[in-house]
């Protein structure tokens, strides 16, 4: 290469990519190798995946269930709220958005402690999966609200609604027939973000979970601490297979929604 500066830049970029990629490849290989310590010579196997499935499949299903429930709740709370905020832009709306975004700024551990302080003694609630759900909704809701709000703020909501109103559509009808269809790209991007983040959430969940309710990342932490490397890796591999397509879909949907707002 002619330019030494460019060569240095390329080296740094490739080194950073290697730093991020190499351990993920190691993890995939270790999860499929008979004995990682002996290396690939010991042969490839799917056995560790089956072992993980026996040990942890309930945690995988719990995570999927909580992610879907979290999606439903964030849709019910987030979409109408984003609509109301788009209709009343101003300082109050900014303050509200800032407030509900606090869970992005305050570490999950601190939020979980706060929830435990207030609700820890209500055993029926504390010991049920809905307690974990509350934590996940708290953390993912701002993403749904912001995603929908940014799309609604970019379209001429007022003119569209006035048109529908002059044809006799009431406010609820307008919300369903005008607002929701126009907000769909934002809702899709928000929904994928909510599911991706909920499946991977650990910081809140570790404090909120009970021994009978372990989510996927809680199970991962458990396997890292107490299982052999092959099992931990196979479990991580299952997690990657779930999360990577979701992440790619989320990035695609977010880019698509962003094009509308520009």
């Amino acid at each position, binding site marked *: 290469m002619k330019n030494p500066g*460019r060569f240095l830049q390329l080296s740094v970029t490739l080194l950073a990519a290697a730093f991020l990629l190499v351990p993920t490849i190691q993890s995939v290989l270790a999860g499929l190798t008979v004995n990682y310590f002996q290396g690939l010579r010991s042969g490839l196997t799917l056995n560790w995946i089956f072992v993980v499935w026996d040990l942890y499949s309930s945690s995988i299903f719990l995570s999927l269930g909580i992610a879907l429930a979290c999606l439903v709740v964030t849709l019910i709370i987030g979409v109408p709220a984003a609509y*109301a905020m788009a209709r009343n832009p101003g300082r109050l709306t900014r303050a509200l958005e800032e407030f509900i975004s606090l869970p992005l700024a305050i*570490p*999950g*551990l*601190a939020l979980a402690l*706060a929830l435990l302080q207030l609700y820890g003694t209500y055993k029926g609630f504390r010991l049920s999966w809905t307690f974990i759900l509350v934590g996940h909704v708290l953390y993912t809701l701002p993403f749904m609200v912001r995603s929908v709000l940014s799309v609604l703020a970019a379209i001429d909501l007022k003119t569209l609604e006035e048109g529908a109103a002059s044809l006799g559509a009431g406010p609820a009808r307008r919300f369903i027939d005008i607002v929701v269809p126009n907000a769909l790209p934002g809702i899709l991007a928000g929904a994928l973000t909510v599911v991706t983040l909920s499946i*991977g959430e650990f910081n809140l969940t570790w404090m909120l979970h009970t021994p009978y309710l372990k989510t996927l990342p809680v199970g991962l932490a458990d396997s890292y601490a107490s299982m052999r490397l092959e099992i931990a890796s196979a479990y991580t591999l299952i997690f990657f297979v779930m*999360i990577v397509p979701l992440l790619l879909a989320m990035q695609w949907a977010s880019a698509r929604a962003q094009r509308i707002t520009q």
Partner: protein
Amino acid sequence: MSSRLFVALCLVPLAVFALAFLALPIVRLILASGEGDAGWAIYWQILQTPRYLTTLIQTVVVSIAVTLAALAVSTTAGLFLTRNRFRGRAVLLSILTLPLAFPGVVVGFMIILLGGRQGLFNALLPGHVVFAYSIFGLFLGYLYFSIPRVLLTVMAAAEKIDPSLEEAARTLGAPPHRVVIDVLIPALAPALIAAGAIAFATAMGAFGTAFTLATNIDVLPMVIYTEFTLSANIAMAAALSVLLGIVTWAMLFLARTFSGTTVAAGG
């Protein structure tokens, strides 16, 4: 139903949820921090007890180191990827943003695979090269999840820089390093401050990564966790949480002031 009433009703679910599960718990946490033997002097106690003070300093030092390293690496890579179009660029970009969806525990495991007892470095190099559970391992773990976050912020800003500014500087005879110092860095400054604040806040609050790696290292989230679970020192756990929350919130507020976006804190 009037339109006004309908719009107001749309906010009710959010208001109820935010009040019950965000506002009230935070108030409860703040009150709990003052309910120990020391009362509100507990915040003074944090600064006077060597263990807490060392933890605080250690956490801040690691977070600053990670922030500087992530800024250096991600700005270099981000500028390179914005300026150059080549085959494999999209793949490289995907690799560099992939860890965004990794929970902190998984990031910790990635560092164990690199620097643990069965790790890559211990296998390739003679002697025992195990660094996963040291402060250096923690630094690498934090760097792992900071690189993608900083990269995205820097690239978004770099794409908006007018290339003619650089050309002008070059035509006027500026050597490459002067172009970087006089044109690129000032143009990127708001994004760099924002990205740095995000990286710092995320590192300060990272629990998952520390949980996997820092069994012998005192960083703030781990101390909060042990105060709460092992020592049952609720007031101190609450006070340290409040302190941590204020620091990370202030940093992210700073980030938002300098650039419109924030990437989720997590790790």
